[in-house]
């Protein structure tokens, strides 16, 4: 059963300590490293189960992206517990692209970077290409792509990874109107299937309230 259970989560960036320091700084002022901790998130609680679609709102710098990255396992936390069950993917357009290689080759690189096996990706390739609407451009190096094309390929790969938990950080502004509609439809299908947990961070409160069955505000 897919779930996310977060209790009293706290995550700090100790501004001096975690800043990459040079040995010189270390020798001159060794104590300075332990000053200035900044809590990006503190005492945060959340309990989500399969089928939940959650909108997260809050001002800039409130820790929305930090929360998503912590759930995705990118950041380690400093307080509390976080229990995530299920395969997580943070939808990030064009993460891991090799600019000099073709779209096809990049499907394999990004797919394996997400922990998929080669044979699984091979099966997905036709669907990804179709969804991305890149046509013959799929054989061109990614550096030739417009930013919209690269984003379309990234999104197409991301939604085919088939994760249990999908984290979306304001990436819906991708491609033209038709492609946006297509993305929204995929998302709607995910939501209707009730098999996944979806967390969306966005400033568009109205858009979130239409999609989500839960909403959380981080202050």
């Amino acid at each position, binding site marked *: 059963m897919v779930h996310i259970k977060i209790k009293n989560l706290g995550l700090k960036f100790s501004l001096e300590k*975690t800043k*990459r*320091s040079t040995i010189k700084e*270390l020798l001159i002022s060794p104590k300075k490293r332990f000053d200035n901790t900044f809590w990006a998130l503190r005492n945060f609680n959340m309990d989500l189960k399969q089928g939940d679609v959650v909108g997260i709102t809050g001002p800039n710098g409130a820790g929305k992206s930090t929360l998503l990255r912590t759930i995705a396992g990118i950041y380690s936390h400093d307080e509390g517990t976080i229990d995530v069950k299920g395969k997580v993917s*943070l939808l990030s357009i064009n*993460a891991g692209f090799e600019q000099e290689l073709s779209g096809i*080759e990049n499907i394999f*690189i990004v797919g*394996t*970077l997400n922990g998929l096996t080669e044979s699984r990706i091979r099966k997905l390739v036709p669907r990804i290409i179709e969804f991305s609407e890149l046509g013959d451009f799929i054989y061109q190096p990614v550096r030739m792509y417009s930013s919209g094309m690269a984003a379309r390929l990234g999104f197409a790969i991301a939604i085919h990874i088939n994760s249990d938990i999908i984290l979306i950080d304001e990436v819906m502004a991708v491609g033209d109107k038709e492609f946006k509609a297509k993305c929204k439809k995929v998302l709607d299908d995910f939501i209707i299937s009730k098999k996944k947990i979806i967390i969306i961070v966005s400033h568009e409160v109205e858009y979130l309230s239409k999609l989500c069955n839960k909403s959380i505000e981080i202050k």
Partner: protein
Amino acid sequence: MYNIFRELHKYRHYISHETRAILKVRHKRTFFGYLWWMLDPLIFMLIYYILVVVIMQRGDNDYLVFVFLALLPWRWFTSSVNEGVVSIKNRSKLIKQIYFPKVVLPIISIASNTVSFIIAFGLLILLLLILTITGFKIGLAVLFLPFIIIVQLLFTIGITIILSHLNVFYADVENLVKYLLRIWFFLSPGIYSITMIPDKYLPIFRLNPFTLLFESYRDSVIRNIIPNLSGLLILGIISIILIGIGLNLVHKNQGIYAKVL
């Protein structure tokens, strides 16, 4: 430890695809394309041939082979370490976008350089086989080469993983490494023979892993004798311990990398 290996196993496909990507990109947009795979080591060896035989008049091919048997493994080691040490730091953007075991990054650097080394070393052995017509002898001791190469590979992996971890926090590491590697080479019997070292320094000199490795390559290819197997075994065990330390360091700290970089 079991979890680390299970995760590495899961990401083996990424390691192989990214390694291939790096190798492909390296000579992309060049006129000769994949020919550079051969040209690169051949030009490298040709330069030394001109330097040693033509300019310095050291004359004999034997000395040249003697030098190549150290230079090629050394080039493999330094390019792996130099690329590996920055591998985590330089991919900060990726690290913040997606979760994956960070230790794959230094491993990919080593893997791509290992492929280049195998090609270069293969070419050298091929040249030596051609030289057998002129009387150069290759014996059965060459069969020890894979063992020597594996020990060096393990040593490289251990060192590189630990350094790539340290470099995330102290960017000085990558600079220091460049200079230390240069000094290290001159302290190793790469372009000179171990017989030139005074006896009283020999015990210290033999503590250098590259004294052992260079001599082992020469034992098996030139001298046709069994290399120092117990020495290699000890180095292999030390290397495996270093790899264990490195894997643990990266595994424990990788959640901090994204915060620091």
